[in-house]
């Protein structure tokens, strides 16, 4: 009796904490959004931003806020959330802190395809995004095929040994893709190579509306799918036996979740390139914030969105007259901050 009561109290406490954390993150996102809409060559006051968002205010403000800045903000939020979710699902499924799309070849597959498109076929804009998306999916398909024996328990990766098999094959493919990129970059004209480099670091430049719509719709569909699969992810994290006992068909569930994670990474990478570090670190931070052992999906998405959108604000406005790609900011500023957060969390949680 009293034990159940205590458990109930703990659960309620966890839920309250989750609500508080999600509320705080949403507030942070709001602040970032207002800043992103305010700042620029033409600074728009916060109340005018609000007015413009409601369709009022001067035409100039409306154009700058809604026409120029809002699409970029929206894309950065969607991309960040996608990276955050991709990382959360990968790390939850594979039980390895190194398992993020940056490490296991998805990003590199996307990069190799995009660089090929740029350097060999002179592609630009949406074509590069498409190539990156296809590259990510091809890389994921290759990893799954090569990791193989999906029917066998653990073959598609779980914590420990079998998971490391999946990740290792991904790393091997990542190095192959890297070699291809290196080959192309050394053989191309150096100006073209620089253009490819800009894509490789991850950047949200001028956003075209079709790109934004496609990205947002894809991300939305994937989010619905992931919401349906989330209970299964939580059970899988208890271990295969426990999940089976709870009625989860382990192999198909794991395969579906992996595909969703890959698709998230592919959508985000296609839209903005492989923005450094976001997928890797959003989920661990979210888990520390929320506490508990679950995958913390909502929080991961919010952390990812805050990181990318915040970094993009910095990328545009931190140094006057100097616009840098967002991936550089997530690397230079983001990585140390995020690491400090993780280190703090570690100290309270002990050895993770």
């Amino acid at each position, binding site marked *: 009796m009293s034990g159940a009561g205590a458990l109930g109290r703990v659960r309620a406490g966890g839920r309250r904490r989750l609500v508080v954390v999600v509320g705080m993150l949403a507030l942070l996102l709001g602040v970032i959004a207002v800043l992103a809409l305010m700042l620029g060559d033409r600074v728009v006051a916060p109340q005018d931003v609000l007015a413009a968002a409601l369709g009022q205010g001067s035409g100039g403000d409306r154009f700058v806020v809604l026409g120029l800045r809002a699409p970029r903000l929206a894309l950065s939020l969607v991309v960040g959330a996608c990276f955050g979710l991709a990382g959360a699902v990968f790390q939850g499924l594979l039980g*390895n*802190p*190194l398992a993020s799309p940056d*490490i296991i070849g998805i990003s590199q597959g996307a990069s190799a395809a995009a660089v090929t498109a740029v350097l060999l076929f002179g592609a630009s804009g949406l074509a590069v995004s498409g190539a990156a998306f296809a590259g990510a999916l091809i890389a994921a398909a290759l990893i799954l095929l*090569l*990791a*193989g024996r999906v029917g066998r328990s653990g073959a598609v990766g779980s914590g420990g*040994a*079998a998971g*490391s*098999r999946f*990740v*290792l*094959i991904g*790393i*091997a*493919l990542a*190095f*192959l893709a*890297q*070699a291809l990129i*290196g*080959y192309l*970059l*050394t053989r191309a004209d*150096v*100006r073209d*190579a*620089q253009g490819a*480099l*800009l894509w*490789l*670091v991850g950047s949200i430049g001028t956003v075209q509306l079709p790109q934004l719509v496609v990205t947002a719709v894809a991300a939305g569909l994937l989010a619905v799918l992931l919401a349906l699969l989330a209970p299964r992810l939580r059970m899988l994290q208890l271990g295969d036996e426990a999940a089976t006992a709870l009625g989860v068909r382990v192999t198909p569930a794991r395969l579906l979740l992996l595909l969703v994670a890959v698709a998230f990474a592919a959508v985000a990478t296609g839209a903005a390139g492989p923005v*450094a*570090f976001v997928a*890797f670190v959003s989920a661990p931070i979210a888990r520390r914030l929320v506490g508990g052992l679950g995958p913390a999906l909502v929080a991961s998405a919010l952390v990812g969105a805050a990181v990318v959108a915040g970094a993009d604000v910095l990328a545009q406005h931190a140094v006057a007259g100097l616009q*840098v*790609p967002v*991936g*550089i*900011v*997530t*690397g*230079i500023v*983001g*990585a*140390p901050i*995020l*690491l400090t957060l*993780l*280190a703090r969390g*570690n*100290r309270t949680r002990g*050895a*993770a």
Partner: protein
Amino acid sequence: MTRAAPAAASARLIGQRRPARVLGLVALLLGVVVAALLSLLLGSRSIDLGTVLGILTGGGPAGAGTGTGAGAASTEQMVVLDLRVPRTIIGLVAGAALGLAGALMQGLTRNPLADPGLLGVNSGASLAVVIAISVFGVTSPVGYIWFAFAGAAAAAVVVYAVASGRTGPTPLSLTLAGAAVTAVLTSLITLVLLRDLDTLSQYRFWSVGSLVGRDASTVLPLVPFLVIGAVLALVLGRGLNGLALGDDVARGLGQRVGLTRVVAGVAIILLCGSATSLAGPLVFVGLVVPHLARRMIGTDYRWILAYSAPLGAMLLVLADTVGRLIAQPAELEAGIVVALIGAPVLIVLVRRDRAVTR
């Protein structure tokens, strides 16, 4: 059951395995010799074994008497001594160093996915090379060496310090600190490259990893670092075996866990820093080779380390040789070929290995 019985059984097992393992090591060393010879013989101009041996031993080509003109002979002499001997030596040295460093790194982080680059060595070296090119106008691979070595060491020390915090590094904190520092440095590198076309045009060739354009004598100043690193690595086997059991068990066995970690860190910096400054960032060697070694002799780090050195040397020298042959008349850089050879090997290993490896 008494405790003595399994101990005795495992001693017997080890006793049985030992000769086979020594034999395997001898075979590997022979393989290294063969790889080195192939590297001297093959290329856009293939030279026969007798001529190469003649050039190596006497300085004069053995083929001189068989009607080869003096001009051709001296060309062959130049090809072998000035071009192929240096890159073979550098390939052997850098490959062995990366193999050892990779085995150490995987033992240190208890993560079979770790490569020595995780300690920030590559990105540190790369940033230093970028600075060398863009600020100091250095233009030759030989000129990069000390920049690269200093950069590698500095980055690795930072990673180690950040990961240590108050309590000493854990596998997870090392991994995360390494990833973070790498992200920072890589971003800085990209920032420079996006604004400086000349630097990019130089740096991109260094960054794929290559053995070309280095003098044999460039190895000399690094020899002390390499020797110290190798010696440290080879005595660390027992300590890494302890770490693999977890810190508490290792301490219970009377091992000094902290000391092992520090020494392993120093050895990785020395080995991987030297290799990277000689041949560019070739992390993949450090990732693949320990897996190959594990596949051959199991989980004992003393043997993994002993096997990783010759395996690394062989892989890198072969990759360089293949790179000369498959894209004639041009060449593929060793770093690219290492991935082309190493990735399939790793995939096959991982697929076969069901009782995966730790």
